[in-house]
């Protein structure tokens, strides 16, 4: 109905005064709205609504113009892409602008990936990366065939194979490689993979313990979970690094990497337990009662009815916990392990590459690496979440 139509209706004359809140006059028709489609309307709505928004748009626009071009100049246009040592990245009379020193990253890429792992044995690390990638894709792709086998592969076969590959097995002709030679992305991946493989089963057990009716099991689980969640990872790593050797007999001293792995796995398990517990609590009671009415035993009920459903709805949170775990692996440097970030720290102060932009380049490379890994994981979590929401909506 247009305004012309509305004004053509005669207003009936009021006979009684009516309640005070009823208006006695006819309001003048409002002007037609501005266009609500097209680029101009879009910009009006999203950028220039009112004076505050106009000011914010201008300020942020200026800020972006101030930040982005110098960043692009640094990272791409003024960057040095190849070279063998610091000479290509230092200021000279002819070279007054030096951006990121990507030549440094390129030169030390093998160190950042494998640490000091013997060059002749690095194919073993590559095979490990490939095996891990297969396991991850198999487990995470919700449409992959035989995902139960995928679980067995990831949680049983892969750890054994990886141990043989990385540590070595003289009876197979693979010579032993001491863990203090490991470093770089390899250690970061090993730490997070061990954290993932150990923390999920242990976390499930702890969550079941916390929800159990047995007082002793419940108490032990609660104490462990609350204790670990209440202290910083650094102190857990310290504990694993300096206290664990005291608690085991002299002939069984664990090596440095193993100590850190124990610390990380226990730490992650406590967080995983709370995530799994939330999933268990979200499940309707009828599922438990139905399973019990069918005469299933406790473990049958858990493995056949409860856990499959509870874990499915917790996948996004599990992945988010893994993102935290992945970022936390950077802290293992405190007990003297050369993870990815530590190799960058070590390489950036190496005088062979002593140039002004080397540190910034190193940090930028690390940032890109961590960002890609974490972003992929969180996009996956969001994807699963969206899929589950769609399934719930029907």
């Amino acid at each position, binding site marked *: 109905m247009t305004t012309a139509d509305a004004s053509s209706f005669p207003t009936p004359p009021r006979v009684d005064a009516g309640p005070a809140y009823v208006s006695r006059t006819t309001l003048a028709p409002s002007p037609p709205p501005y266009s609500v489609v097209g680029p101009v309307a879009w910009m009006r*709505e*999203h*950028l220039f*609504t009112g004076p505050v*928004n106009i000011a*914010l*748009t201008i300020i*942020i*626009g200026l800020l*972006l113009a101030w930040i982005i071009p110098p960043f692009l100049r640094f990272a791409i246009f003024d960057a040095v892409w190849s070279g063998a040592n610091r000479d290509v990245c230092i200021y000279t009379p002819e070279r007054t602008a030096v951006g990121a020193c990507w030549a440094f990253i390129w030169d030390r890429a093998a160190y950042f990936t494998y640490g000091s792992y013997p060059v002749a044995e690095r194919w073993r690390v590559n095979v490990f990366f490939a095996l891990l990638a297969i396991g991850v894709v198999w487990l995470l792709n919700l449409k992959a065939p035989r995902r139960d086998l995928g679980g067995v592969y990831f949680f049983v076969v892969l750890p054994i194979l990886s141990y043989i590959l990385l540590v070595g097995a003289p009876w197979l002709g693979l010579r032993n490689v001491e863990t203090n030679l490991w470093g770089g992305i390899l250690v970061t991946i090993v730490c997070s993979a061990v954290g993932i493989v150990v923390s999920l089963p242990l976390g499930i057990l702890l969550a079941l313990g916390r929800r159990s*009716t*047995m*007082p*002793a*099991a419940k108490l*032990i689980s609660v104490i462990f979970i*609350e*204790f670990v*969640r*209440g*202290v*910083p*990872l*650094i*102190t857990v790593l*310290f*504990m694993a690094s*300096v*206290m664990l*050797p*005291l*608690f*085991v*007999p*002299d002939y069984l001293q664990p090596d440095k990497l193993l100590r850190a792995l124990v610390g990380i796995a226990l730490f992650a398990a406590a967080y995983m337990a709370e995530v799994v517990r939330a999933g268990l609590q979200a499940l309707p009671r009828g599922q438990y009662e139905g399973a019990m009415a069918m005469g299933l035993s406790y473990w049958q009920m858990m493995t056949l009815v409860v856990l499959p459903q509870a874990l499915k709805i917790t996948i996004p949170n599990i992945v988010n916990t893994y*993102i935290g775990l992945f*970022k*936390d692996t*950077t*802290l293992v*440097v*405190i007990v003297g392990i050369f993870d990815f*970030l530590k190799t960058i*720290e070590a390489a950036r102060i190496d005088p062979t590459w002593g140039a002004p932009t080397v*540190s*910034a380049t190193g*940090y930028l490379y*690390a*940032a890109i690496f*961590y*960002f890609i890994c*974490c*972003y992929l994981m*969180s996009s996956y979590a969001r994807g699963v979440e969206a899929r589950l929401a769609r399934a719930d909506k029907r």
Partner: protein
Amino acid sequence: MSVQTEAASARPKVSPLYDPKVRSVAFQVLLCAALGFLVYVAVSNAHENLSRQKIATGLGFWNNLAGFPISQTLLDYSERYSTYGQAFWVGLLNTLLVAVVGIVLATLLGFTMGIARLSKNILVAGVARWYVEIVRNLPLLLQLLFWYNAVLKALPSVRDSAQLPFGIFLNNRGLFSPRPDPEPLFDFVWLALGFGVVATIAFRWWARKRQEATGAQAPVGWVTLGLIVGLPVLVFLLLGRPIAFDYPAATRFNIGGGMVLQPEFLALLFGLTIYTGAFITEVVRAGILAVSHGQTEAAYALGLRPNITTKLIIIPQAMRVIIPPLTSQYLNLTKNSSLAVFVGYPDLANVFTGTVLNQTGQAIEVVGITMMVYLTISLGTSFVMNIYNNRKALVER
């Protein structure tokens, strides 16, 4: 009742192997025995290892001379006469300092960005979104190292410090600012501030009662501002500005006087604030989105204006969703402040599990004490927050 007992007694006798009660007790006994055995082995091993390595046990070291310097001390501390116990308190206060300042700043940043994230202005929302995406996906340690090594340590040296307004200097030794030295009369300003806070609380209580009784709104915001800011400023001016400033002065190799915020403190503060702020942003956004749109529409239908709707309808309901995860972010910030070790800020973890552990070698005691401190902070906070949360929780029919 009687039917049940009858049914129970009529139940066929099962083998104790399949009796759930027997099984449960047996399992728990086994669990406790296994755990007890583990603890026994660990303790006896520890005892043997400690005596073999000739490491002292017990808390005897607490009153021994520490003999190492600490770069930032809020208490009286000197390497010449202070004990390990005093070092502990200095470290703990440094942890609490960075945690409290960090929590305040991260909350401000997080709430601003959380609201910006929901803005209709795509530039504002986009900046907030990419802030969260980038910061949450990078390890805190990387961010700390970046702030410390690539930003604060890359600042100009003392000789060519950047001079900011108000006599502030910025260089690679930190941020130097004038130190206020209050004169005796300044105590009255504190008094005025205290009075202002008490009066504000009383006024707010009165305004609330009156609003509930009559519906009339009082200008709470202006009165609060006047009492808390205006009154102390007025007293300050009336007393003739009883404060002196000690300005930092640049000498050739150093800056003397004034007060200094060390780069270690600043790096840790920036890192923690920006990192936790990103998580708080998401918490705030989720909280606001959790308030159903019907609430806003109902408020508008009742004729409430938008800012009143925000204040009385949206924020109280959003806070109910925001507060539990917000608390855990605060605790995370406090725990993450232990990353001070990596930039050399003398917090509890750095002073105690770092230097003291190295000097005494008493791993069990030192790590144990440190863990207990963090545990006390965490459990204490969650205890208080649970009480608060139970009071604020939605009372369902």
